């Protein structure tokens, strides 16, 4: 089937569509009404989530501050204090990084205007976004491992006997594997396939 034949088939489709009604006004009205209701609910939900995330952020900062001042309150050794500092700085930077990343993604998606931007521009932006999702999943996996290393060091596990260390490392590695497996398999895997497929398909747009 070449282009002329494709045209014939296309005309067949056109002819068929001319005979039938695709949609009626009631269906569209119903869809709009549902959309309006859902949008209102989502807005309320979003406001709830924003309040919740702000609360979590404040609690997180309070907990970090508390951890930060704990050593001076309880006269904890200098070595221990420096380790707690490293751990809190690590967590603090991770939280700030996460907030920055979420904001960046949100702004990117919000600025992708499908009614104003041409197809190639929207596709490029979607491609970029999907590559970021992929990078995000890899980064979270790496973060889990780095966090465990820092935690291991902060808790002085490296000073324990070899047998204890072997057990601890075994438990931590197993825990990491389980978390990363669930992250990929249950949350990201289904989408990763789609993302990969979409990235491959959209790549030809970027070869302009």
């Amino acid at each position, binding site marked *: *089937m*070449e*282009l002329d034949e*494709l*045209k*014939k*088939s*296309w005309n*067949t*489709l*056109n002819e*068929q*569509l*001319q*005979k*039938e*009604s*695709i*949609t009626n*006004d009631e*269906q*569209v*009205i*119903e*869809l*709009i009404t*549902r*959309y309006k209701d*859902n949008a209102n609910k989502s807005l309320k939900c979003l406001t709830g989530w924003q309040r919740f995330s702000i609360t979590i952020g404040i609690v997180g900062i309070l907990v970090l501050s508390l951890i930060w001042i704990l050593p001076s309150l309880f006269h904890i050794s200098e070595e221990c204090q420096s380790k707690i500092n490293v751990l809190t700085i690590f967590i603090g930077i991770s939280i700030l990084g996460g907030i920055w990343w979420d904001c960046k993604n949100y702004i990117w998606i919000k600025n*992708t205007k*499908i*009614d*104003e*931007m*041409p*197809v*190639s*521009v*929207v*596709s490029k932006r*979607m491609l970029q976004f*999907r590559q970021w999702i992929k990078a995000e999943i890899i980064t979270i996996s790496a973060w889990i491992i780095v966090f465990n290393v820092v935690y291991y060091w902060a808790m002085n596990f490296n000073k324990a006997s070899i047998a204890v260390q072997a057990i601890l490392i075994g438990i931590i590695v197993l825990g990491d594997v389980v978390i990363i497996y669930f992250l990929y398999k249950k949350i990201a895997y289904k*989408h990763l396939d*789609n*993302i990969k497929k*979409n990235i491959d*398909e*959209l790549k*030809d*747009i970027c070869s*302009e």
Partner: protein
Amino acid sequence: MENVEQEFLSVIHEYSRVIYKVCYLYTTPNATLNDLYQEVVLNIWKAFPKFRKECKISTWIYRIALNTCISFIRKEKNIPEIISFTQEADRIEEDDDKQLMLNKLYWMINKLGQLEKSIILLYLEEKKYEEIAEITGLSVTNIATRISRIKDKLRVMNKED
């Protein structure tokens, strides 16, 4: 009913076949015709108040429909399955030859890349190169080159078939 809604309905009524055809070509097992159709209609509704008539309404509709279909990843079903928009269209009864023709059309076009699919769709809709360029954001020369490349691809596919 509000004026905006009435105006929107008449636009949807006029362009329902256009939307259907775009969705038809981008249907996948994960994104059914009905899902895509609803998503496109909703996106047109969301963008409708912002439409400034700087371009032809058909150009605008094609842009939204193509962008929606290409960007559509079904992370979750945001839209409840309330309406089967394409019910009527699904019931189209073709004779075997026509059905075969449509199946082949779908199969051939689906072997093309996302952007090629958009270009060939607009070409089959007999849009001028200038309008295809406006919708896709590519240059007219690029469109011509791509159409020629698509023709070659179709020829190869035809031989392989």
